[in-house]
């Protein structure tokens, strides 16, 4: 008597679970499509950047999310960090960032494109790039030196 009722209930439960699984799969597919379409420009920019980096720069970028370039006029080393503004550092001889430079294309571009434009500018026409760039300090000003006041002993 109970067996047909149980098997019918099991079938209904099974169909219910299948419907839920299909619903989740459809939602996941819609979410993934939206995610990929939103990220596509960023991905294209990074792909183009990687195509134009030297093998050493590409390896450095893959490992550290930044790469170094040598200025064509001064021979100075610059570090271009992942980003689209205030992302270029001038390094000193020890490789420590000392001065920041900010120069960007005058149209909206994704980070990879901005970084590639900065790289080409520094490697082919450093003076022109720095002529338009804004400069900012990369190190915090050192704390003022307080003279120690000796307390008077009693």
């Amino acid at each position, binding site marked *: 008597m109970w067996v047909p009722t149980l098997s019918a209930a099991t079938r209904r439960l099974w169909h219910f679970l299948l419907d839920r699984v299909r619903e989740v799969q459809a939602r996941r597919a819609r979410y993934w499509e939206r995610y990929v379409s939103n990220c596509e*420009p960023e991905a*294209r920019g990074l792909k183009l950047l990687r195509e134009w980096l*030297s093998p050493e720069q590409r390896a450095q970028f893959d490992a550290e999310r930044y790469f170094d370039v040598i200025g064509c006029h001064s021979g100075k080393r610059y570090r271009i960090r992942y980003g689209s503004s205030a992302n270029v550092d001038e390094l000193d001889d020890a490789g420590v960032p000392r001065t920041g430079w*900010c120069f960007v*294309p005058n149209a909206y*571009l994704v980070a990879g*494109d901005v970084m590639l434009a900065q790289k080409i500018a520094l490697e082919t026409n450093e003076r022109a790039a720095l002529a338009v760039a804004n400069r900012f300090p990369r190190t915090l000003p050192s704390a003022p030196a307080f003279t120690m006041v000796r307390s008077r002993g009693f």
Partner: protein
Amino acid sequence: MAIQIVMDHSGDTRHHFDTDDVEAVAAAERRFNELMFAGFTAAIRNASGDTMVTRAFDPTAKETLFYPRLVGG
């Protein structure tokens, strides 16, 4: 085949053209000049991977990249 890559908000737009096709090369030259007039910078890569900035259309360049004018950020 050669390619002109123009950076834009979508990442980039790529224009392929046949270097043996006179009309396609003329169209590529027109595009080059229009982008130069709009303030873009054109960069080409030689066989060894070195990048050079160019101000004149080079019909033999396999890959030309255009990026907008740089300004202080």
